[in-house]
Structure formats: structure tokens, C-alpha cells
């Protein structure tokens, strides 16, 4: 039997996983051998990647990949990798994310073994969410989380766990790249799987929008703007019809939008307009909403007539604006 030229490839997947696990156990112990173990992990992760993605110029061997995946589940390597992620080398962190994401995408017929594996161990997902609290692994965990969210079962687990509400603080952390990464994960969670998200928002309306209101009032310009935009998208999605009707029946929400319309930033004004219009165009405005609009009728008409008049190119906006002005003018007490 010809010997492989590169030493690494002759290890069987079972051996690779076993070695990887041993090194991880070393790291967990945290004694003085752990430095060595970190290097070991780095090496074995590369080998794993080699099996999954194929060595240079070679297609991956599907049998080996299947074996490797199976061994990974059996040895419970994934939770260990994620738990110790912060201790690994920079490159290793990226490798973990790549391997994790690749395993998640694996499908056998209609089954996704990794998804099933994670469904049975939701604590792995929660560890990933907590990853946002550690700057050195936040973005890596984010990429793994978003990969998880593509699968509706996992998205559901994440939505219904209390750690979901941690996102409201993560999106406001001072480091911009972490905050925006967290925001895109957050957005995926509440928009990706329409029915699940709609159901979630409907049942957890008060708690969710209680928190959301804080984002809209945030000191941070980016948070304010992003959350306002997302709010517009949420309300205009047909799946969230119930949420929308509830939201636009609450006079406090209207007041908030009217204040945001007068923000210094033009972009925020513009985003606020797209939420404000949903209140005004409603043919069956509840009494409290109608009252506010009526009380401010003259001022609103004046304000809207001069609102973003330089947007001459945007036909849609101008049409909508004209429609709103007409609606407000025609309101009767």
C-alpha cells in the first residue's frame, strides 16, 4: 500500500477526533501543559478542515466526512470547542466556526444530523449567545449563531430561551463591530422564519416591545436608526398583521414616532416617516390615535408639507407624503 506523502492524511477520522478531544481536555484542566495543548488543537483542527474541505486540489471524501461527523457527535467535541473557544488561537477560532458551519449544512436526505444534535443540546446554542459577552470571540460566535438561525428548529429554540433578551444589551455594546454583528443576528432571529417569528412576537408582544422601545430611545445613533428601520420592516410584513394592528393602536407609539420625525438626523426622520405612515393611513384609527392626530392636525400638515422636500427623485415617498397630508386634512373630529 502506497504511503501518503503528507503525514496528516493517514489518520482516520476517529483518531483525529480522539486526539482533538484529548487536547481539549488538557486545555480545560488549565495546567501548564495547556499551552502545548492549544497548539495541538490548532493542528488537529487543520486536519479536520482538511477532511471536510478536501486536501489541496482534492475533493473531500464523503465517507470520511460522514465518519468524522459521527465521531464529532459521539465524542461531544462541539460543545467543548465552543466552551473553550476564547482560549484557542486566533486561527483556530476561525477554523472552529468554519467546521461548525460546515457540519450544520450537512444534510442526509431530509435530515440534518447536526441540527438534530444541537436541538437535543440547546445549551450549546446558549453558550454561543453568551459568546457576545467576550469581545475576542463575539464575532465568531455570531457567525455560528446566524448559521444556526437558518434552521427553523434552532431559531425557535433561541427565540424562546430567556437569553434572547440579552440581545437587547448586546446590540448596544460600545464596540461597533460587535454591536452591529449582534444586531444582524438579532434581526435574523426575528425575521427569518416568518411564521415562527410572527407567533413569537404575538405571544410575547408586551415584553418584546417593552425592550424594543428602549432601543428606539437609545442614546446610540446607530442603534436608534437600525431599530427604527427594522421596526418598519416588521410592521409591514404581512405575517405580523396582528402585531402591526396592536402596535398602531397604542398612542404612546405614535407619540414616539412623532418625536422621531423631528430628530436632528435626516435619516432617522426618514425611517420614522415609514412607521408614522402606518398609523395615519389606517382606515380604522382607534380613538386615542385619531385624537392625537386631530389635535395636531394643522401643525402636522405644515410639518409634512415641508418634510424632506429635497427628495424630489423619490416618487414613492412623495406620493405617500401627499397621501398622508390628504388623510390628515380630511380627518373629522
Amino acid at each position, binding site marked *: 500500500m502506497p504511503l501518503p506523502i503528507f503525514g496528516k492524511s493517514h489518520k482516520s477520522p476517529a483518531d483525529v477526533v480522539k486526539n482533538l478531544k484529548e487536547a481539549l481536555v488538557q486545555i480545560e484542566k488549565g495546567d501548564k501543559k495547556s499551552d502545548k495543548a492549544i497548539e495541538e488543537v490548532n493542528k488537529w483542527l487543520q486536519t479536520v478542515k482538511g477532511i471536510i474541505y478536501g486536501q489541496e486540489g482534492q475533493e473531500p471524501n464523503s465517507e470520511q466526512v460522514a465518519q468524522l461527523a459521527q465521531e464529532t457527535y459521539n465524542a461531544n467535541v462541539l460543545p467543548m470547542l465552543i466552551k473553550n473557544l476564547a482560549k484557542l488561537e486566533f486561527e483556530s477560532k476561525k477554523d472552529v466556526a468554519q467546521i461548525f458551519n460546515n457540519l450544520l449544512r450537512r*444534510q442526509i436526505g431530509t435530515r440534518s444530523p447536526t441540527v438534530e444534535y444541537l436541538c437535543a443540546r440547546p445549551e450549546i446554542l446558549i453558550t454561543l449567545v453568551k459568546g457576545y459577552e467576550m469581545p475576542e470571540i463575539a464575532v465568531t460566535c455570531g457567525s455560528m449563531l446566524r448559521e444556526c438561525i437558518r434552521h427553523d428548529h434552532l431559531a425557535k429554540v433561541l427565540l424562546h430561551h430567556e437569553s434572547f433578551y440579552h440581545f437587547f444589551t448586546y446590540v448596544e455594546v460600545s464596540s461597533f463591530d460587535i454591536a452591529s454583528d449582534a444586531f444582524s443576528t438579532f434581526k435574523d432571529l426575528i425575521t427569518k422564519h416568518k411564521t415562527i417569528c410572527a407567533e413569537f412576537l404575538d405571544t410575547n408582544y408586551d415584553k418584546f416591545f417593552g425592550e424594543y422601545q428602549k432601543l428606539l430611545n437609545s442614546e446610540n445613533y446607530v442603534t436608534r436608526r437600525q431599530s427604527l428601520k427594522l421596526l418598519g420592516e416588521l410592521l409591514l410584513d404581512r405575517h405580523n398583521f396582528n402585531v402591526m394592528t396592536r402596535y398602531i393602536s397604542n398612542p404612546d407609539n405614535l407619540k414616539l414616532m412623532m418625536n422621531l420625525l423631528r430628530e436632528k438626523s435626516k435619516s432617522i426622520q426618514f425611517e420614522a416617516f415609514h412607521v408614522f405612515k402606518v398609523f395615519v393611513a389606517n382606515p380604522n384609527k382607534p380613538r386615542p390615535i385619531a385624537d392625537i392626530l386631530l389635535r395636531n392636525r394643522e401643525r402636522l400638515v405644515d410639518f409634512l408639507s415641508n418634510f424632506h422636500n429635497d427628495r424630489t427623485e423619490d416618487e414613492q415617498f412623495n406620493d405617500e407624503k401627499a397621501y398622508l397630508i390628504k388623510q390628515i386634512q380630511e380627518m373629522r373630529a
Partner: protein
Amino acid sequence: MTSKTEVLGDIGGRGLHWDGQPPVPTEEQANSFGNNSSGNQLKLSIGCEDDEESLSEDELRERYRAWTLSQVRPAPPPVQQEQAQEIRVFQAEDEEFLPMPSSLPEDFGNELSQLLRDNRPLFQTLHDDHIAEEVWQRKPPKILNKYLFGDVIGEGSYAKVKEVVQEDTLMRCAVKIYKDRRIKKIPNGPENVNSEKEIMRKVNHPHCIKMFEFFRLEEKTKQYMVLEFCVASLQEIVDTWEHKRFTPDWAHYFFRQLIAGIEYLHALSIVHKDIKPANLLVSPEGRLKISDFGVAEQMPLYQNDDTCTNVQGTPKFQPPEIVGGHNPTYKGFAVDLWASGVTLYNLLSGEYPFEGDVIMKLFENICWQPLEMPKTIELEEESQNLLTGLLEKDPMERLKMDQVKHHPWFAKAPIEEKFDWEKFVAAKGGNSSRQALSVFPSLAQLYNDQELESLDGDEGGSGDNDLQNPLAPQEEAPTASRQDQQRPNLVDSPPQSEHSASAFYRGYTLNLKWLCLNICSSLWLMMNKSDNFTYLLFTKFYDCIFFQYGLSIS
């Protein structure tokens, strides 16, 4: 550098790799274009890299004409190399005119006979420009609202679709042209065009066609909708496959994308109402794009359900609740799902679930005939099950979006291959019209000629050259359209007194633009690809050069 190459190879999706150097000129090369002899200039004018050291002006003309003609000539089989070759060196002696396809322009015959008149050898150098000019005058490059127009790539009852290239971004697009007169003749025509426009403005999803711009030109009495460029419709593609059907894998691949697109539309309360293979386009990357929102309906935001009243669409793809005609209203979302079921049935088998010689018979069958699985092919059990669910006659019992997405056939892993256009192009008789840029002849006219002129200017030639474009259509020149017809200029024309320098300058900048176009198109042909991304990438590249050298000249 490596990463860039990888990216490009990846777009190509066909494992094209350049080792090392991407075909981008070095600084030195770029520098030499402007201030060098005509030899270099000419080198630029031809589509790809040239081996010959220098070319005479006559040779240039010859190639030039070859280019124009090669566009109407049925192209050879689309082996990439050959295509590239076609641009590079037109082998006049070897060429024969093949029988003309029916789609040729009417005046082509006349042109041809004029060309053949006096037994003039077809592609020999001509010492007067007589014939070439005639061709030019008949088809001057058309630029409207910053779009350079190419060939017609499709036609529907409402509009004609042409290929265009945006002048500044060089992005390849399709433009749907609505003629006022034609629209007015169609019942509900103007309203439908308007609602299509309104809907398109909202739509932004990878599986729905994107509108970039909508404008109206009063002097033309036409409206223009600029859309993402797509290569062909699913109908056209599936027709080229054996038995006019996809393999289950490919049907699955497209069906998943279709459902993703429909889900998005439904989330925006839009009912498409005319889902069928002919309305599903495929982008150069092999991505399905739902198109033609002509009869789509936007439901009011505050309406809790998806009740529609307006009936429009294609009978063969309509569900019983519509064709039965008993119900004043119906559920819009269920209609799209039925139509996607008919589409899937058709993609998998090449047949339709319900047919009829006359429309009443078709309607009757849709309403009453029990669903039968295709006769010409045995479908997998799971896909049969999905079809049964989608083609359920009772709209309340029909599968809902969520159920479709969780159906085992739907949920299986999609095919990993990349969609390969080669088969399609080969089946189209190697007609590469959908692959090569059809605006190319116009570009050749615009930029090639400019170079010659600016050379004249440099030699102290007549001052008119700079101000008047001999090729610009002179017969119809109302002020408004004259503006439109002018060549794309990169820089505002400098003052006349500096005429000679400005001609040089303009020629120079245009050279660079032209160079980049050449790189784009040759790349494109090499990769057998035509995606906007490659385009944009090279636009960026071009911007760099322009910025660097454009400034240094003045």
C-alpha cells in the same frame, strides 16, 4: 492578489484560474495607451489581447466592420475560446454566410446585397468608407438617459425588452420599453403598468427581479423600466432539455428558489397571479428571478386576509376557484401556490396537469378532472405527494406556504452543482446572443471612431472634429434627443481653444474606458459568464486608472 483571483474564479463557477497575473494591465501599459503611437491605440480597439505588434488603419476598419457584421451573423458554437477568438481576429476568408435565421432585421437582406454588389470581395479592405458608413447611419448607437441600447432580448404583449449597459457603471441591465400607443390599446393597460411599477419599487429580494430605475421620455412617448439582466426564462431553458423537463434535482433547485421568492412577495402582501415558467427568469449566476408583475396585486396593508377579486393571469396555471367562476372573491396566496404546483409539475415532467383543446374544456378539466401524475415519467413518491398537495382543488385544503417549506421533498438538500449555461447555449444552436454583450457593436462604433478622430486632432486636423460627431444621427435632431444621442463623455468638454489637447485628452480617457471594457468583455467570454459583478469589479478598476491618470494629464 490571490484572493482576488479566487473570487473571480468563483464567480466563473467553472474553475477558471489564472495563475498569478490577472489580465489587468500594469501601470506601464496603461500609461502607454494615451501617449503612444497608433499601434497601441489600435491594439486597444479590438476585443481581446492582440498578438500582432501593430495594425494598420485599414486593418482596424476591417475588424470593425467584421464586428458589426458578426453580430447579425449566426455565431459559431459557443466554445469559449472560439468566442474570444471571434472578437480578436475575424477570419474573413474562412467565413461563409449561413442561412439567415428568421429573426434577422428586415433590412439585413438589403445590406447584404449591397455588400455583395459589384462582386466586391466581402471583407477586403475598403478604401472608401461608403459601405461602412451606411451601416452606421442605419444603426447609430442609441443612448437614452445614460443607457446604451443593445438588441431586443424579449417581447411580451405590453412591452419590448432590450439589453442595455449603464454608461457610468457599465452595468448590464435589461430595459422594458412600454410604448404609450400600445399600452392604451390594452384594456387596463396604463393601470397595470402603473401598478407593476409601484410593486417593483417595493420588491427587493434575491429571487425577485429588481428594478433599478423607471423613467419616461416624453419625446419618445415611451416608458422605460430598467431591470436586472437575466439570461433566459425557465421556459426557454427547460425547452432545450431532453423531453422538455428538468432532472428532479434541477426542478427541486429552481422550485426552492421560486418558493423563497413567493414567500417574500406574500410577506409584502403581493399576490403575483401569473407564476409560470415563462415568467421565471434565470440570472447569469443561475439564480431564479420571479418577473413580470404586470397583473400582480398589492393588497391593502390593513386587510387581514388575502382576499382578491381581480382575475388575471394565464388560464393553464389558474386554480379551480378562479376558472370555475362561481366565487366573487378568492384567496390570493393559494392561487400562487397552485400556479407553482403547475409549474413544478411541468418542470418535472414536461407535461401539464390539466389541458384542453378549447378554453372551456381546459376550465372544466381544471375544476373536475382528478389529478393524474405524468404519464411519460415515473416521479418520486415524495414529489408526487407534494404535487398532490399543491394541486388540491379546494383552496382551503391546499398546502400552505409553511407546509410546502416543511414538505420532505422540499426540505432535502439542494443540488450542489452550479447551473451551467453551456448546454442551453449549445441547444440554441450556439447562438451566443444571450451571452455576449449585444451593445458591443455600438461601443465599437462609439469608441473606435473617437480614437481616430482624436488622432486627427492631434495632427492639427480640422477643428470641427471635436465639436461635431460625424456619426451622430443628423437626420433627427430635436434639441432634447440630441443631448441623448451624444457619445458618453467622461469629462466635460474642455474649452475650444485647447482643442488639440482636449481631443487628445478625450481620446486618452476614452481609451482607458475602452480598455476596461475590453478587459471586461474578454474576461466575460473567457469565463463564459455575464454577471454584473464582474462588470462592477472592472468598473472599479477602471475608476482607479481614470482617477490616477485622468488627473495627471491636465
